[in-house]
C-alpha cells in the first residue's frame, strides 16, 4: 500500500478535537449547561468538518493511504502511531463525524448530569475515530477499548429499562470479545518475526496457515461480538434499549461498525488464508443473523428492541458481504456499514424524541403518532423504509451489492438472505403501522412536534441517506479504490 504523508495533521486533529473538547469540559462547571453543550458541539463539529474534508479531499486517482502520519511510539515493542485514510475507512470516519455531530444536537435537551454525559460521549468518540484511522494494532486495540468502555457509564446513568443489567451485559460481553482479540492480535505480532504492530508491515508477512486460522477465528469472534454476529448478538438489543438516545445512535450507528470494520481491517487483512478457511462459517452465521434478526424483531413490542433486532439483521448483511471476499461484496459491506450507521442513528434519534415525550416505547401503547407529531413520525418512517430496503436510500445500494455478490459465492445463503427481506419489510411496516398509524392515543395528544432545531440533526441524517441513495457512486468509487487492492492483496 502506498503511503502519502500529509503536510498537516488532519487526522490527529480529528482525533484530538473530542479529546480537547472533553478536557475543556472537565474544567467547566456543571451549571454552565449551554457552554458545555456548545463546547461539545464545536468539538464534534470540528471532527465532522475534518471528516468531510478527508472524505472529499481523498485523491481517488492516487489511491493508497493518504493523510498518513507515522511516528515511532514505543520502539522496543514496535508500536507506531500510524494513521491514514483510504477508501475503507474514509466513509466510516465520515459516518462517525455525522453521527456524533447529530448525536450532540439530539441530546441538546439533556438535563441530567450534562457535563459528565458529554465527557464520556466525547471519550467514546475519540475511540471510534481512533479505531477507524489507525493502522497500528496496538492503537487499534487501545481505541477499540476506549470506544467500548464508556458505554457502561453512559448506559448506566442516562439509560432506561433494565439498564444495570444491560450495561453490565454489554460491557462484559464486549470485553469478553476483547479477551479473544488480544491473543489473536498478539499471536500475529509474535509469530510475524517482525515484532511490530504496524498492520501494513504485518500484511507483508506470510503467516503459517495454522496461525492464520487460529488468529482469524479468534479475531472474528472477538470483533464479531461487537458486530453482533449471530449468536453473539444478544447484548445488542438489550443494550440499545437501555441506552440513552445519542448513545444508541452512536452505538448502533458507529460502534457496531467497529466490529465489522475490525474483522475486515485486522482479521481478513492479516489472515487471508484464515479467512478462506472460515468464510463458510462466516457466511452461515451472517445469514443466520439476517434471517433470525427479522423473525425475532417481528415479535418485539418495544420500538428499540425492534430496531435492535433490525440491526442484528443488517449487521448480518454487512458480515455476509465480508464473507463473500469479492470486490462487490466488500463494497456493499462497507457501504452498508455507512448506510446502516446513518439509518440506525436516524431510527434511534426519532425514537429518542418520541420516548422523551411519551415515556413509552411500547408499539401498542403508541399509535397514530403521525397525527400528533408528523415530523417526528416521518423521521422514523423514513428510517423504517430505509431499513426495509426501499430504493432511493443509501442502504438499498449496499444491500443490492451484497446480495448479488453473495448469491454468486454462496447461492443458498444469498437467496435465503434475500428472502428475509420480505420478512424485513413486514417487520418494519408492522411497527410503523402499529405505532404511527391508526387512531392516535389520546394520552399523547398534547405533545408537540419536533422543533426545527431538534429536527436539524434528523434532517442531516435523512439528507445523508438520500444523498447517497441517489449518488451511490460517490461512495462506491471511493470505497473501491481501497477494496480492489485489498482483494488483490488477499
Amino acid at each position, binding site marked *: 500500500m502506498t503511503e502519502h504523508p500529509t503536510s498537516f495533521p488532519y487526522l490527529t486533529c480529528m482525533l484530538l478535537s473530542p479529546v480537547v473538547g472533553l478536557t475543556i469540559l472537565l474544567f467547566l462547571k456543571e451549571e454552565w449547561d449551554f457552554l458545555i453543550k456548545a463546547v461539545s458541539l464545536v468539538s464534534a463539529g470540528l471532527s465532522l468538518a475534518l471528516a468531510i474534508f478527508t472524505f472529499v479531499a481523498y485523491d481517488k486517482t492516487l489511491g493508497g493511504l493518504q493523510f498518513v502520519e507515522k511516528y515511532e511510539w514505543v520502539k522496543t515493542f514496535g508500536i507506531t502511531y500510524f494513521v491514514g485514510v483510504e477508501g475503507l475507512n474514509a466513509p466510516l470516519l465520515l459516518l462517525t463525524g455525522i453521527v456524533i455531530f447529530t448525536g450532540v444536537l439530539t441530546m441538546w435537551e439533556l438535563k441530567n448530569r450534562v457535563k459528565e454525559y458529554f465527557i464520556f460521549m466525547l471519550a467514546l468518540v475519540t475511540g471510534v475515530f481512533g479505531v477507524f484511522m489507525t493502522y497500528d494494532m496496538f492503537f487499534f486495540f487501545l481505541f477499540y477499548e476506549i470506544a467500548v468502555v464508556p458505554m457502561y457509564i453512559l448506559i448506566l446513568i442516562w439509560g432506561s429499562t433494565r439498564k444495570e443489567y444491560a450495561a453490565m451485559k454489554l460491557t462484559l460481553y464486549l470485553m469478553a470479545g476483547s479477551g479473544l482479540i488480544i491473543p489473536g492480535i498478539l499471536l500475529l505480532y509474535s509469530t510475524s518475526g517482525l515484532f511490530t504492530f504496524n498492520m501494513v508491515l504485518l500484511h507483508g508477512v506470510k503467516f503459517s496457515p495454522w496461525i492464520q486460522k487460529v488468529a482469524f477465528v479468534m479475531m472474528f469472534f472477538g470483533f464479531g461480538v461487537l458486530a453482533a454476529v449471530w449468536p453473539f448478538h444478544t447484548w445488542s438489543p438489550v443494550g440499545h434499549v437501555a441506552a440513552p438516545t445519542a448513545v444508541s445512535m452512536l452505538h448502533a450507528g458507529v460502534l457496531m461498525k467497529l466490529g465489522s470494520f475490525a474483522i475486515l481491517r485486522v482479521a481478513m487483512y492479516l489472515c487471508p488464508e484464515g479467512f478462506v478457511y472460515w468464510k463458510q462459517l462466516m457466511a452461515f452465521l451472517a445469514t443466520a443473523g439476517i434471517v433470525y434478526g427479522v423473525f425475532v424483531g417481528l*415479535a418485539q413490542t418495544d420500538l428499540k428492541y425492534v430496531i435492535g433486532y433490525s440491526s442484528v439483521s443488517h449487521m448480518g448483511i454487512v458480515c455476509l458481504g465480508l464473507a463473500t471476499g469479492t470486490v462487490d461484496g466488500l463494497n456493499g459491506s462497507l457501504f452498508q456499514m455507512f448506510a446502516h450507521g446513518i439509518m440506525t442513528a436516524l431510527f434511534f434519534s426519532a425514537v429518542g424524541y418520541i420516548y422523551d415525550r411519551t415515556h413509552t416505547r411500547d408499539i401498542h401503547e403508541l399509535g397514530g403518532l403521525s397525527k400528533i407529531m408528523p415530523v417526528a413520525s416521518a423521521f422514523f418512517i423514513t428510517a423504517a423504509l430505509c431499513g426495509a430496503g426501499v430504493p432511493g436510500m443509501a442502504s438499498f445500494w449496499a444491500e443490492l451489492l451484497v446480495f448479488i455478490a453473495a448469491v454468486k459465492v454462496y447461492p443458498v445463503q444469498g437467496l435465503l438472505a434475500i428472502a428475509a427481506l420480505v420478512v424485513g419489510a413486514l417487520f418494519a*411496516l408492522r411497527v410503523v403501522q402499529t405505532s404511527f398509524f391508526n387512531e392516535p392515543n389520546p394520552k399523547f395528544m398534547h405533545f408537540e412536534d419536533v422543533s426545527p432545531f431538534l429536527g436539524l440533526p434528523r434532517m442531516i441524517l435523512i439528507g445523508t441517506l438520500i444523498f447517497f441513495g441517489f449518488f451511490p*457512486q460517490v461512495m462506491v468509487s471511493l470505497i473501491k479504490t481501497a477494496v480492489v487492492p485489498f482483494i488483490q492483496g488477499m
Partner: protein
Amino acid sequence: MGSCDPVLLGCLLTVFLPLSAFALIMIFTWRYHKLSMAISLVASTIPLLIAWYFFFTLDVKQPIIYNFNWLVSDQVKVPFGFLLDPTSVLMFVIVATISWLVQIYSIGYMGGDPGFGRYYADLSLFALAMLGLVISSGLLQLYIFWELVGLASYLLIGFWYEKFSASEAGKKAFVVTRFGDIGFFMGLVFLTLYFGSLDIATVNSAALTAKMPPWLITTSALLIFCGIMGKSAQFPIHVWLPDAMEGPTPVSALLHSATMVAAGVFLLTRLFPLFAASATAMSVVLVISTITLLLSSTIGMVATDIKQVWAYSTVSQLGFMAMGLSAAGLAAGTLFPGYYHLTTHAAFKALLFLCSGVFIHHFGTNDFFVMATQGGRKLLIPMATITIAALALAGIFPFAGFFSKEAILGALAHLPNKMWLVLGLFGAFLTAYYAFRVIFVMLFPKEKYDKYHLETDPHAHAPAHSHGHGPGPGFTHDDAHIHPDAKPGHEHDESGHGAGHGHDEPHGVPWVMSFPLLVLAGFTLILGFCQGSLEKYLLGESAPHHIEYGLLVSAVSCAFGGIALAWFDWGRRGAKCVGFISYVPVLENFFIQKWYMDHFWRWFLNTFIYGIFSRAFTYNDRRVVDGGVDAVAFSTVGSGRLLSFIQTAFLQYNLLFMVLVLAGVGIYLLMGR
C-alpha cells in the same frame, strides 16, 4: 449524447421534476395545500407534454438509449439510463396521461383533506417511480423504480393511516408485492450472473439468450414472473389488490387499475423475448393468469363494494393480459394483443374508478346498492361515462375493450389446446356479467335489496375486515390489541375523510372531477379504432389482420350473454336481484370468501411466520442464546462464590492447602525425572 439533447433533457425532466416536487412538498410545503398541489401539477404536466411529444414526433424504430453510470462496483454495474422504444414510449404516454388526469381529478376529490399536501407529494413520488420504471434502460434500474412504485403505493394506500384497515392494507400491499419482488430480484441476480449486465437490450437479444442454458432462462424468467405476479396481482398473491381499495379512490384509479398493476404486465412485455425463450415459463404464466382471470371474475360477481368489483375486475383483466402475452409467447405471436389490452384497459378502468369515485364522493358509501337506492343515476355525467366504461370492459363494439379483447382471444385461439380459448371466453362472459351487474343495479334501482348483500356478510362488505376483525383462523397478537376500541364498519367509513364535504355540499360534480371522466371516456371510444396504428407503432408493421369471424361471434355472444344474464338477474323489472350463483350456495359462499385466499395467507402468516418462526426464534433468543450467555455469567459468579470457600477463616486449613500445593508441585516435578 450532448447535454443539450432535447430527448435526453425530456427524459431527465420526466424523472427529476416529480422527484423535486416530492422533495419540495415533503420537506417544505406540505403544510400549504394549494402550493403543494400547484407544484405537483406542474411536475406532472410537463412529463405529460413530453410524453405526447415523444409519442408523436420521436422516431423510435431504432431504440434510443442513454446510459450513465449510476453505480459501478466491480462486476455489478448499475447504469442509469433511458430506453425509448415503442414499448416504453407508449407506456410512458399512458402513465403520464393517467397520472395527470388523476391529479386533476384529485383536486376535487381530495379537496379539504388535512393531508392534501402530502397526498400530492405521494402522487409525485408515484409519478416519478412509474415514469422512471417505464423508460429505464436497465433491469436493475427498473427494479429500483419498481420498488419505488411499491413504496408510493404503500404511502398512498395507507394515506388515511389513522384508519386501521387502510394502514393494514398499505402494509399488506407492500409486503405482498415485496414477496414477489424478492423473486424478481433473485431472477435479476441470476441474470447478472450470466450476463454481467442487466441492460434490457442485452437481456432481450436473441443471440445471447440462445446461448443461455435453458434451465437458467426458465428459472430467471419464472423468478422475474414472481415480481410480475406481485405487482400485477396474479394468483396466488393477488390478495393485496382488493384491499388496496382502502386508499382514496383516485389512487385506486391511478395505481390499481391503470399504472402500477400494469407495471407487471409492462415488465412482461418488456422482457417478452426472454420469456418467449422459455416455453415452460410461458406455460406457467398462462396457467397462473388463467386461474387469476377466473378467480377474480367469480369474486367480482358477488362483491357489493363498487371498488371491490372494479378491483377484482382489474385482477381479472390483468390475468387476461398475461394470458394474451403468454399465449402469444407460446404460439410465436407478438406482444401486441396483451399490450393493446393494457392500453385500453388503462383508459376504461381508470374511467370506471374515477366514476365510482364520484359516486363514493357523493354518497359517502362504497356499496353500490346503497348508491343505487339513493339515486345514483341522477349524476348524469358519471353515470354515462361509467356505462361506457362498463361496455368497454365487457367488450362491446365499438368500445376499446372490444378490440383488445378480440386481439387476445385471437392469440389464445392460436394455441393448440383450445381449452385456453374456452376459458378466456368464459372469463369474458363473467366479466360482462359482473360489470353489468353494477351498471344495472345503478341504473334500475329497486326499492329494496336483499339484506343479505347489504349487511349480513361483513366479508363481502369490507374486505379488510376479513383479517382485521373477521373470524379468521386466528388473530395475530399485534392485531389483537392494536385497536381494542375499533368498531367494525367504522374504519370502512371512507366518507369521513375523503369526502368530508360530500354530505355538506350536495351539488353537482365539480368540473375538475368530470373533466377527466370525459377525457377518459373519449379515449375509451377512440382507442379501439387506433388498433392498427398502435400495432404499427409498436411492432413496426401492422401484421396481416385476419378477422376470424367464428371467434368474433363467440366473443361477442359471450359478452352479450353476460350482459343478458345480468339483465335477467338485476336489471329487468321484477328481477330477483339475486345473482345466479346464489342458486349454488356453496359456490357463492366460496366466492364471497374470495376463494379463501385471504384466509389462507392469514393462516400462513399466523402459523408459519408469527407462530412458528418468529415465536421459535424469539424463544430461542431469550432462552437458549441469551440464556446461555447469562448462564455463563451466573456460573462465573457461582464459581467465584464456590472458590471463596477456599479462603476459610481457619489459618491452618489455608496453610495446609499451601503446603499440599507446594508438595504436590514438588512431587510432580520430580516424577518427570
